[in-house]
């Protein structure tokens, strides 16, 4: 891969079935940009968790909004930028789940944001003029 930056964008509606468009888009991106196949499942998971949070909790049902997903690749690094105009929510401030709790008392939810942080190398959030902007970064080695 050369040093030039590559860019692609996918806009989806705040409908959970729209996640079905993300998977083929990622597969296409992997082929076109020659991304390592090994990083795609992690990116897929982080994206699903982040997008489903926005769709379920960030935007009130009945309101139609667009969520923008931008992909930027340069060298051995992929940046994914999610932008939405839903409620302000900073997933980087979320509490870590207690992974040692036995099944009986383990809470049913709370894993999604934790998985985003585990799957990606960097996650950052900013709120600019009413827009949530979540940046997720994935790096990989040369010997993919």
């Amino acid at each position, binding site marked *: 891969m050369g040093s030039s930056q590559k860019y692609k964008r996918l806009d989806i509606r705040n409908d959970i079935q729209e996640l079905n468009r993300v998977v083929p888009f990622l597969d296409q991106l992997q082929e076109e940009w020659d991304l390592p196949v090994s990083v795609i499942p992690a990116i*897929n998971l982080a994206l699903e968790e982040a997008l489903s949070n926005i769709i379920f909790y960030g935007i009130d049902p009945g309101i139609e909004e667009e969520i923008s997903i931008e992909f930027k690749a340069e060298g051995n690094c992929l940046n994914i930028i999610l932008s939405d105009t839903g409620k302000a929510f900073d997933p980087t401030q979320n509490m870590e*789940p207690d*992974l*040692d709790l036995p*099944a*009986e008392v383990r809470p*049913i939810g709370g*894993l999604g944001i934790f*998985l985003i942080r*585990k799957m990606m190398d960097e996650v950052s959030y900013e709120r600019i003029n009413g827009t949530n902007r979540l940046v997720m970064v994935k790096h990989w080695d040369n010997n993919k």
Partner: protein
Amino acid sequence: MKITTQTKGNDIFVQVEGRIDTTNSIDFENTVSQALTNEVKQIYLDCSELNYISSSGLRVLLTFLKKMMAAGGTLKLYSLQPAIKEIFDISGFSTIFPIYPDLVAAQEN
């Protein structure tokens, strides 16, 4: 996603193919729930063809595990693909679910 369920005595054998994600975890939940009766003590989940799971899938599995444990049984998982096992390890689910290399081991333990 494709799900098949088979009931034998007090056991249910479930096989899932493909993905359990936010868009279809409710289908998985409904299909397995329909097969559950008060007599069922064990669920055996064949994960050999499961190639993706997100937190919504993990949530449904945890719900069934809790339900089975409350009924004096359990939910046993077997033949997990390495990428799925990794998600279980990361989320701490490997320590709360009984996980086996294959069905024989799951039935013996």
